[in-house]
């Protein structure tokens, strides 16, 4: 698990990377997530919620790409620690602090 993006620059949404940036995703993509979940609540058919699903995917991938552009080393360290400890937040506090400090919330 070397980096959170592949050599071209597209982010790789593995579970470690997603859990590492889950706070940002929850904050930044909240409306897209809510829209998708509402659509799913009305009709669980996957074919009916493809539009909202694409919105969610775009939002998350753009967010990951932006995060990696701004602080790639800390993000890779945090995602690597998550990968090593299987997404256990309590075992990665140090990397989490550094990631929060490096990638400021406001952009």
């Amino acid at each position: 698990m070397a980096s959170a993006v592949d050599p071209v620059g597209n982010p790789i949404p593995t579970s470690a990377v997603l859990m590492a940036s889950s706070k940002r995703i929850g904050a930044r993509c909240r409306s897209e997530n809510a829209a998708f979940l509402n659509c799913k609540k009305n009709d669980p058919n996957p074919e009916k919620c493809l539009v909202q699903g694409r919105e969610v995917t775009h939002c998350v991938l753009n967010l990951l790409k932006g995060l990696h552009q701004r602080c790639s080393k800390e993000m890779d360290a945090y995602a690597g620690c998550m990968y090593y400890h299987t997404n256990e937040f309590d075992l990665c506090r140090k990397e989490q602090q550094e990631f929060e400090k490096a990638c400021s919330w406001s952009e």
Partner: protein
Amino acid sequence: MTEAMIRKKPGMVSVKEMPVLQDGPPPGGFPPVRYARRIPNKGPSAVAIFLTAFGAFSWGMYQVGKGNKIRRALKEEKYAARAAILPMLQAEEDERFVKEWKKYLEEEARIMKDVPGWKVGESVYHSGRWVPPATGELRPDVW
């Protein structure tokens, strides 16, 4: 030597007049022995003991409550992270499913094209809701 030669009294005729060698009390008797019970009645009172036990228990329960709060915060962090990435994962799975479902419908249409009155992809249930397909294996390439 015999006892008579050791303990003899001058002018003794027979052994029966030998002075008696006995183990007895010292002169004046033994000192008195206390045999009355004397259990002391000092130490913490019942109220003090009860309050100490109650205090220890409450302090322990307070520590338990603090630990529970910390653990609940950790669990909520984990649940919030899962809830945040759930739509992304579900959206990705939906895309993959729709692609596979289309392939499956084409296959079904090809197989059943000569059967009269067959609606391809028709739901086998009457409830009207969408139900995940139960056509054997979900992802044969994975299994």
